[in-house]
């Protein structure tokens, strides 16, 4: 077995020795920002000894827009369109968390129906995001076919978003106080059809990618996150679950209507790239199961917006809170501090990529083959914009 051997192989580099680039022994290469094998717009500064990476530094900031600063000078309602831009492929979690945090501080409770609609929206988003990712992991190991399929199916999910929210990528659907609209007519049927399509696709991918000798050879044993690493590195979400931790905010600290849904927390044991892919693949099935339940149980009438003050001069009482949700990458959180004015005092967006793409990546990359860096990067599932904001 090719992959079994890999794991036993030790790095030739002694990590304590300083790396002398002048010695001619090493090559320094930049993977990114203009590089097809990098997620989003970021860069890895790699030092190679032959094919082996001996040092890795993540460079971020190419997408830095200063969201936290901008949010400090926008009113509470004006922030709602901007937050979704923080994580491009997965904007809805930002919308939800921002809305939830503001609601908590302002003492507003969103109506039941809004909660169901939000849950549906979040789960659809999770599906779309995972589909993109699944394509990414295929593509990063050279299986471009999968990428073509999944991105297409993601587009079908985006069609649902377009119908439901009025936009494909930046939905701006979950507002503080509730949501913007109910479901359009016939949406449930179309949603079920898309879910069926995705489920079929997942079965195909199971055969094509997960039962693929080359994929196994590449992904098994790649980037192993040991159990001891999880807490000191702040690893969350599927990356932690693949290491055997049953941690899922949807189950541990249920928000929205997750306590009324029946789902399993998927975990893995191997904690390598393959296990992480497998966990996510399985979570997509759980997501589809959840969405079917939501479509079944969701109330179809009733208000979807709480009574709101005039948003033009909305002053939220002074306070601070931290609201979190389980996004595709793990614990996503909004930390809001208000001072009783019309503006935020401080907002901090806690994205799981922050640690996954920097501390974890820099650690795991060392000793890895240069050819595996792209796959390793993707397998950690990071979005640069949420790191630098």
């Amino acid at each position: 077995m090719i992959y079994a051997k890999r794991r036993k192989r030790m790095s030739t580099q002694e990590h304590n020795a300083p790396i002398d680039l002048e010695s001619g022994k090493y090559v320094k290469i930049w993977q990114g920002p203009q590089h097809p094998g990098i997620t989003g717009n970021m860069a890895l500064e790699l030092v190679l000894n032959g094919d082996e990476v001996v040092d890795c530094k993540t460079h971020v900031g190419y997408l830095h827009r200063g969201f936290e600063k901008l949010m400090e000078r926008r009113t509470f309602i004006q922030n709602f369109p901007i937050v979704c831009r923080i994580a491009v492929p997965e904007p809805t979690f930002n919308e939800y968390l921002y809305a939830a945090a503001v609601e908590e501080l302002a003492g507003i409770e969103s109506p039941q129906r809004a909660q169901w609609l939000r849950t549906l929206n979040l789960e659809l988003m999770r599906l779309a995001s995972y589909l993109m990712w699944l394509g990414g992991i295929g593509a990063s190991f050279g299986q471009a076919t999968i990428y073509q399929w999944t991105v297409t199916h993601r587009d079908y999910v985006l069609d649902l978003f377009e119908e439901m929210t009025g936009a494909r990528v930046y939905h701006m659907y979950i507002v503080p106080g509730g949501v913007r609209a109910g479901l359009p007519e016939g949406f449930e049927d179309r949603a079920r059809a898309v879910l069926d399509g995705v489920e079929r696709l997942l079965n195909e991918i199971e055969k094509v990618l997960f039962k693929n000798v080359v994929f196994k050879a590449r992904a098994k044993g790649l980037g192993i996150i040991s159990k001891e690493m999880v807490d000191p590195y702040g690893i969350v979400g599927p990356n932690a679950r693949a290491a055997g931790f049953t941690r899922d905010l949807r189950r541990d600290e249920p928000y929205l209507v997750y306590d009324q849904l029946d789902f399993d927390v998927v975990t893995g044991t191997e904690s390598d790239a393959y296990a992480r892919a497998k966990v996510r693949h399985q979570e997509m099935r759980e997501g589809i199961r959840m969405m079917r339940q939501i479509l079944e149980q969701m109330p179809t009438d009733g208000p979807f917006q709480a009574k709101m003050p005039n948003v033009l001069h909305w002053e939220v009482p002074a306070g601070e809170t931290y609201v979190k949700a389980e996004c595709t990458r793990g614990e996503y959180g909004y930390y809001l501090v208000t001072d009783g004015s019309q503006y935020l005092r401080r907002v901090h967006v806690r994205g799981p990529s922050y640690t996954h793409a920097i501390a974890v990546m820099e650690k795991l990359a060392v000793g890895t083959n240069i050819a595996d860096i792209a796959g390793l990067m993707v397998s950690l599932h990071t979005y640069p914009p949420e790191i630098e904001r």
Partner: protein
Amino acid sequence: MSLKDLISPFYVWQRAFEKPYTQKHPIQERPGAPRYRGFHVNVLEECVGCGTCETICQNHAIDMVQVEGLEPKPGDSGLRPKFDYGRCCWCALCVDICTTRSLRMSNHYAWITEDPTDFNFIAGADNMSWNGEEYGYRRDDDYHLLRGERVKMEMLAPEEGLKSFEEVMKGYTEEQAKDEADRCVECGLCVATCPAHMSIPDYIKTVREGDYEKGLRILYETNPFSSTCGRICTHRCEEVCPVGHQGEPLAIRWLKRAIVDRVPRERYREILGDEVVENGKQVAIVGAGPGGLSAAYYLRRQGYGVTVFEAQARAGGMLRYGVPSYRLPDNQLDKDIEYIRSLGVEVRFNTCIGREVQFAELIDDYDAVFMAIGLNVPSSLRVKGEDHPRVLSGLQVLDDVASDKNPGVGKNVAVIGGGNVAMDAARVSRRMGANVTVLYRRRIADMPADPEEIHESQAEGCTFVTQAIPVEIKDADNPDQVTIVWGEAEMVADEKGGRPRPVLQEDRMHEETYDCIISAIGQGGSLDFIPGDYRDQIEFKWGKFVPGDYQQTALQKLFVGGDIANNTADAISAIEDGHHAARGIHKFLTGELVA
């Protein structure tokens, strides 16, 4: 490595024998979803140019610009939003907040150009391919960023109100006032409509902030009768309030009251900081009504010596004698008047021009004269027998009540008219224990009285008989009673496009007998005191002055205002006339104003 892992990947080839995912012509085949947030459309006719969209846009993507062919008019600024698609993020907050719902989005999304300055357009006005598109984002009916319902004000129950002359509207509590003030979108469309051009959004803001002292200062910049206006203003501002397009407009009048109610009279001087520095010039003002006193206030503030001549024994004019105290309690009116007088305005009561003082004396003795004598001659019903002793004038009834005299209306009263005086007379009569029938020529919707007044009158048990035209008044069998003959009317559309006209139906006549009939169909003025030689210099129309700029007449020293010089005949217009005349007098006396 199992054989299965080697074989299973070839499953990809199944897809090769299926229909490709590819859409042949995506550009044509895929219009935006019915709810898609595409490019903006605006219904120019519905839009009022309030600029709320501009306010809420976090990207500064919207400019309010003039559109050819659209002029400002009451309740419409004539401006329309212009979008910069180098800024817009299609969040549709502007659509959500749009007060009239005229702003929408189409489901179009394709706009490609070589010139980045192209991406600017006035939605609805510029010829865009998506104008009039059926689909696109609209605000959902159940989704609101603005509240349509007004905060309810506590009021005396009708049955309670009937028992006394206690004030009916209780005023907002601080909480309620803040809540109501919160609904304001601060567009300022109301300012143009308010005759006094009060800084309405600014003082509403002070209510929201709880800074009533600042609010008072803002009020007194344009209106020294804030306590009064906060109760009985005709609030034309509320009619044009954009928030009212999808619900009730802001209770601007009540919010004004909310400020004044919270500042004690004693602190006015300190808060307003009015310091009088005499400048030695003397101005005479005729009539201590809202017009006269407001001119007195603004002139006095600038250091003029002001003498007010009032024919009655008390100041306030129509506010005192024409408005019953359940609407405007005396002490509230006094609050305003006392403050003006406390600045050193001299008021000579029971002094009537043409009787105690001659018009020519005023013109000669003073540097300028402001005349706001009001309308105090009731209009004639112009029917046979209207001089019957049991036909009372509405003004007289209100005057008597205000002066604590019994007008003697009896138990069964008919009020003719649909204005505020008619409503007041009716409600006063109800408080005297009478059964009241209101006869009006047109429909309720046509009544010039405030809707609240009509509503409260109805609540208090006045019977409304509309489309009723009085034909004759004659003696009843009982000498203390009077009989009226009236006929039903049909509304006939006016060919010239004016409002429908009632036409008497000769075959449907009614005859009723009442203890008295109160005629309240309007008032006229009396200008007999002006000597002929002056009279020739001044322009009149229908028994009223016709003032020029700054309320000045052709007789340069004479400025006029109030009901006798305008057609709206309400307190707020009189106040503005007084304020404006004060500006004019100041300019005139400093030589800035050249006639």
